[in-house]
């Protein structure tokens, strides 16, 4: 009791006062689903790999990327990047150039010879993968990583499927395909080329426990067009495939392409590159209704391709074609007008869509086909147990990225099926919408950086001629990511808490709340730039 005059208590710290008891709501850290990830058909964790690219750890970024997609260099060129359309940054200035960063990472991986992590312990199971296109490659890659032996069989001379035989070189150079396929083969996947499977049941007898079908859609759809003897009517599939051979197709000086999809654009741009004076796309509806992506149309127009909207071809003559004008009716369907026009044409290329060759599936019990595609359930399994399918043959949305997504989904379901389980996809977190962000904290790009940014855009959306990003602007572009819904360790919550009730756990480990002192004011959640803190009611 050695205390000064009038002092009866020892000095104490306010830490004795647990203000957490005041709380009626509590903040909790959450990981929400960024719109890019939600939109990616291949199920990439885009925000997750951009986070590593931001700090310049490109290998870690690439490894995070290939967790879901083994073909980043191909994706970075040929993917139609719906992620960028969904990007929340669109509402601030412009979307993050996800596709261009992906390409940069893919190219870095090829340049540095990065290999995939070795697969899990072998399960002893063997899976037959038919088709070395994006779906088959993706399925084989994921199966191999899960410990199963994947054997890819393809009828063509080279692997890649439609990526090689359908996408022009100016969009996707072949050495890129070779490099990314080789990396999958190096993982232990067996690749048998020049081997056509004509009977699935027979092929399975070699000792396969399951099969994945990814044969694609290679048969061009035809339309009946009365044609004279001398004219040349070709189909888009054979024109594009012909580009892979020794002799490029002879299309002549005036080329007309009939159709409105991305394939029609590819053919028209290819024709232009082959030296056609005129390359005209004839499409029966309007630009808004065109299935081709707008930036592809834009690129084609810039390259000198012309497009005749609201037109159908009624007749193909010796050196010209007859086109009939159409008009949209009240329901938006094109109707003939009776007005005709002749267009000079040495070649008419039909790009009216593709069908799948389903002949190998005859006599497979339980397997159902319809509308030209194989019917699959939510886990990509066909009606025949153990036979899965994906890519162009199993869906109507036919892009490389969708195919890669199918391959991954099927591989996970096959893995479960091979272990006698049923695949249950993990629950999806809540979407990280723009409204959940506090965009005050994201700075605008200074004006001096704008020209660089514009070049980035051009490089990322144009043809191969322009090359990719270099390290500095790839990192810049990655750092434009808002990290929607996922903590990027900006320290805001740690800083703004008036009660020091946020504990910083150190680099890479994020933060946690000290509920002994958190009064539940909600400031951390309000000032979190990326919406990674939720406020929930306290049980009282």
């Amino acid at each position: 009791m050695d205390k000064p005059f009038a002092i009866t208590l020892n000095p104490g710290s306010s830490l004795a006062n647990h203000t957490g008891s005041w709380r009626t709501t509590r903040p909790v850290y959450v990981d929400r689903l960024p719109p890019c990830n939600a939109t990616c058909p291949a199920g990439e964790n885009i925000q997750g790999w951009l986070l590593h690219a931001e700090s310049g750890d490109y290998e870690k970024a690439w490894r995070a990327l290939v967790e879901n997609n083994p073909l980043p260099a191909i994706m970075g060129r040929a993917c139609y990047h719906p992620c960028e359309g969904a990007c929340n940054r669109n509402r601030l200035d412009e979307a993050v150039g996800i596709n261009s960063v992906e390409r940069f990472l893919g190219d870095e991986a090829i340049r540095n010879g990065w290999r995939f992590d070795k697969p899990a312990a072998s399960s002893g199971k063997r899976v037959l993968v038919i088709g070395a296109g994006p779906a088959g490659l993706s399925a084989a890659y994921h199966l191999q990583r899960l410990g199963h032996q994947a054997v890819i069989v393809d009828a063509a001379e080279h692997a890649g499927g439609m990526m090689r035989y359908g996408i022009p070189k100016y969009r996707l150079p072949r050495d890129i395909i070779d490099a990314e396929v080789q990396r999958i083969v190096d993982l232990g996947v067996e690749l048998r080329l020049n081997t056509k499977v004509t009977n699935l049941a027979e092929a399975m007898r070699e000792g396969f426990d399951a099969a994945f079908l990814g044969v694609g859609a290679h048969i061009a759809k035809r339309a009946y067009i009365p044609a004279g003897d001398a004219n040349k009517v070709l189909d888009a599939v054979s024109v594009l495939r012909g580009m892979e051979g020794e002799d490029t197709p002879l299309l002549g000086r005036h080329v007309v392409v009939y159709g409105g999809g991305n394939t029609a654009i590819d053919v028209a741009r290819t024709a232009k590159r082959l030296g056609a004076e005129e390359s005209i796309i004839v499409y029966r509806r309007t630009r808004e209704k065109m299935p081709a992506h707008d930036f592809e149309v834009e690129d084609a127009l810039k390259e000198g391709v012309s497009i005749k909207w609201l037109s159908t071809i009624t007749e193909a003559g010796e050196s010209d074609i007859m086109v009939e004008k159409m008009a949209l009716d009240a329901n938006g369907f094109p109707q003939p007008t009776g007005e005709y026009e002749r267009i000079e044409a040495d070649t008419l290329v039909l790009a009216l869509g593709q069908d799948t060759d389903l002949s190998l599936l005859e006599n497979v019990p339980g397997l159902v086909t319809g509308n030209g595609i194989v019917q699959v359930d939510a886990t990509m399994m066909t009606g025949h147990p153990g036979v899965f399918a994906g890519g162009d043959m199993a869906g109507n949305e036919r892009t490389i990225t969708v195919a890669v997504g199918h391959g991954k989904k099927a591989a996970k379901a096959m893995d479960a099926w091979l272990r006698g389980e049923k695949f249950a996809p993990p629950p999806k977190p809540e979407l990280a919408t723009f409204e959940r962000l506090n965009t005050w904290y994201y700075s605008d790009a200074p004006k001096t950086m704008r020209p660089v940014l514009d070049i980035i855009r051009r490089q990322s959306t144009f043809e191969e001629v322009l090359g990719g990003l270099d390290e500095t602007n790839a990192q810049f572009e990655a750092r434009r990511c808002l990290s929607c819904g996922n903590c990027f360790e900006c320290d805001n919550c740690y800083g703004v808490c008036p009660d020091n009730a946020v504990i910083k756990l150190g680099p890479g480990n994020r933060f946690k709340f000290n509920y002994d002192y958190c009064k539940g004011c909600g400031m951390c959640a309000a000032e979190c730039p990326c919406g990674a803190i939720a406020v929930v009611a306290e049980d009282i």
Partner: protein
Amino acid sequence: MSFQPIKFYQTGTFTVGNRLLAPQERSVQAGEKRYNSLNSGHRACQGCGEALGARYAIDAAMEACHGKLIAANATGCLEVFSTPYPETSWQIPWVHSLFGNAAAVATGMAAALKVKGQHDIRVVAQGGDGGTTDIGFGCLSGMFERNDDVLYICYDNGGYMNTGVQRSSATPPAARTATTMAVGTEPGNAFGQGKFVPAIAMAHEIPYVATATVADLRDLEYKVTKAMSIRGARYIHILVPCPLGWGTASQDTIRMARLAKETGVFPVFEAEHGEVTAVLKIRKRLPVEEYLKPQKRYAHLFGKQPRVDTIAHIQGLADKNIRKYKLLEEGI
């Protein structure tokens, strides 16, 4: 420029920390081992701007003088909520002065340290707007006039909040308080002449005067650090929104401070020897309604018949700040 120069990063430039910055470029508050001069367990209301501002400012001052700091604290919210006997939230040597003499007590401490030759130990005085602009004003002016080696920090929440929200000379016009009720033809606080103590401090031509808000931590830390690098009388006036007195949601404290700055209601600048040397520009100019509307103390302006005349008057005061302190970029 008045704010801490930061390398260009697209994400997190305005955030507290940012993992992409080198450790020496991060704010004091981002440090894992920051001082936490005002520790947990204090009894400030949920979302208290003053508790936040005090920790920001004193931590930065502690960092600047390597932990050798003594504080004199005027009576007010900050003193009441941080030191109910026998507990204290302060992790620094801290003296509770009277309501009106924090500046004089700090002057005395600075004089004593000078006599003892302990030049490395620095002194701050701190108080709310009541203790600074009303009750302690005489002592404060004396401290300025004598150029005593003290940094005085005023946490301005615009009223006597812990005694039940009474008007102070820093209460803004038209605001409702317990003593300026929203009744009569001119409800709320009178427009008056205004009493902006930073301008009065500048009139003393002391070495350093600055204003800051809790919405811009980096700016605040920069100003405290700069003030600590100067000897003589220094004054920093920090706007700290008060959820209780302003009638705002507890999570909106920082947002309100940000709106005060972005509307021009509260000019953020620094001045040396009586002249403004730098201002924090408005990033996205907003009308004053954006700032007034979320506050219940201005609810009477937005009733069935909005008081557009009063709002226009407040807008006029904000516009005057913008002109006077050149808060917008030239040509905008």
